[in-house]
């Protein structure tokens, strides 16, 4: 095993392990903080795959934005004096069966399919190419994404507005 393989195994173990804590832990705070490690692990996986721009985006948006929003959600939906932020679980056995079935089918299709692979190119910086694609081939999706974000912004503000002044 080369150094890269060992690194990949360690990162994959940390990612999957912290993801398991996210879905198994009883405490919401533990869940939220192990989600941090999952997001960082996924960012490192992106680096392994030669996607440097996406790794930076992952850290900025997931860790810096979405995780903070989720922590806000945890804190704002519990009374502050109630410090044991526990979550309950239900239908454990069916959930486990469905998750196992999904994993088995995905793993089988991943390992049994003969993927048509190309010889791997050395990883290059992708930011410039992605920027050119955004301004060229993907200009329309890019503009639609900006409208989507605006709609989400207005919609979220609408939803949490106090009703008394409406």
């Amino acid at each position, binding site marked *: 095993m080369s150094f890269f393989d060992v690194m990949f195994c360690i990162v994959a173990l940390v990612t999957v392990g912290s993801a398991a804590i996210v*879905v198994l832990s009883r405490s919401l705070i533990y869940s939220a903080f192990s989600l941090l490690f999952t997001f960082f692990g996924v960012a490192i996986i992106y680096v392994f795959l030669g996607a440097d*721009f996406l790794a930076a985006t992952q850290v900025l948006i*997931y860790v810096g934005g979405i995780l903070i929003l989720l922590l806000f959600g945890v804190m704002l939906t519990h009374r502050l004096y109630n410090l044991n932020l526990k979550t309950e679980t239900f239908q454990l056995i069916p959930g486990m069966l469905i998750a196992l079935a*999904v994993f088995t089918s995905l793993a089988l299709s991943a390992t049994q399919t003969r993927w048509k692979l190309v010889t791997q190119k050395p990883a290059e910086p992708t930011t410039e190419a992605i920027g050119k694609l955004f301004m060229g081939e993907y200009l329309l999706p890019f503009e639609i994404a900006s409208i989507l974000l605006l709609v989400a912004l207005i919609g*979220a503000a609408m939803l949490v507005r106090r009703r008394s002044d409406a």
Partner: protein
Amino acid sequence: MITLQHYLLLSAALFSLGIFGVLTRKNAVNVLMGIELILNSANINLIAFSRYSSHGLDGQMFAVFVIVVAAAEVAVALAIVLTMYRLLKTVSLDQADTLRR
């Protein structure tokens, strides 16, 4: 040697953990965390295929849009959760059944 299959297996593990979280958790915020895991595993798949195929950066562009949609989704979903908490004083998904009663 790390090949495409390893990345696919990793993302399959993340995906099924996310499914498990979505199905078994009662807290709405925790369900959202499961959805984030699912979106991340989809992104790993997109980028892995983009790396191991001859289509250039198309997979990475898709991953960027997935991240955009995930950000919009979590903002609106948390707004809904906060409204639900204000109206019902709970974020437990099996107690928020006013329509059913």
